[in-house]
């Protein structure tokens, strides 16, 4: 009988021990990158965060997928080009030169502040998976910061949610982590490669269980 479907074999090196430092091949296979603007990085270089133990290794550094930035980038382009269009169509001809100059300066200052704030919000709202804990770092506005963490061995359930055509095409989705900690749920929103993240979390939980059985708990 002819084959109806032949799946492509997964030729990536099988990493089940995320608590050891992987070799180059394993790093490349699981998505290591030196790009500091990456939304997904396995074993990122030179990353540190407040509350980390000295022996704790960061396994995954995640952000919202880059495509989630398109709305504010579109608004930014409109903001940057609006004065140019206004000048081209003569909307500001009736205003005195000094007022339109000052107005232009303020317009671009405020536009820059908007762009910078949006970038900071994307760049610093991260999700971190270490070999011991998962972290959700949120900067909600200019002055409010929230860091939620849960031990890997307290994770009870991991759900991957990929819910739209765009998310399926660009391979990003939400990961909902149910924990036995005080915060019952941690959500990683719109992260790239959600299946891979869930797999890493599952394997870290297995490693934690193994450590407990062997008495190597830290």
């Amino acid at each position, binding site marked *: 009988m002819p084959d109806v479907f032949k799946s492509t074999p997964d030729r990536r090196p099988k990493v089940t021990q995320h608590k050891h430092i992987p070799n180059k091949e394993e790093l490349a296979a699981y998505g290591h990158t030196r790009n*500091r603007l990456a939304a997904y990085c396995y074993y990122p*270089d030179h990353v540190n*965060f407040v509350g980390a133990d000295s022996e704790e290794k960061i396994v995954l550094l995640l952000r919202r997928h880059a495509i989630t930035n398109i709305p504010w980038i579109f608004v930014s382009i409109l903001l940057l080009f609006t004065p140019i269009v206004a000048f081209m169509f003569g909307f500001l001809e009736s205003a005195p030169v000094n007022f339109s*100059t*000052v107005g232009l300066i303020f317009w671009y200052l405020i536009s820059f502040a908007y762009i910078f704030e949006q970038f*900071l919000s994307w760049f610093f709202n991260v999700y971190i998976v270490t070999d011991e804990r998962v972290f959700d770092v949120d*900067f909600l506005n*200019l002055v409010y910061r929230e860091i939620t963490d849960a031990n890997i061995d307290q994770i009870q359930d991991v759900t991957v949610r990929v819910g739209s055509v765009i998310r399926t095409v660009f391979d990003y989705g939400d990961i909902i982590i149910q924990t036995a900690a005080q915060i019952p749920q941690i959500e990683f929103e719109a992260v790239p490669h959600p299946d891979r993240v869930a797999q890493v979390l599952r394997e870290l939980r297995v490693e934690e269980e193994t450590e407990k059985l062997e008495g190597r708990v830290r």
Partner: protein
Amino acid sequence: MELLNLSSQVALILKLAGGLAAGFYIIFAFVIVRQVNKMTETLEVGLESVLRAVAILHLLFSIGALIAVLVIL
């Protein structure tokens, strides 16, 4: 004559309003500098110096905007 006085008064009011707006914006720019410092203390990824420099430049430009309001208007 009265019209001249009125237009100069309106210009003065607009200049004061512009100066006040620039003053508030400087405070906002300063808060952004503090926010960036806080963020880079919380998470170190390697772009800290660039982001701090951008925030400080933004603050300096906002001070420049205040000077522009006082000089140009």
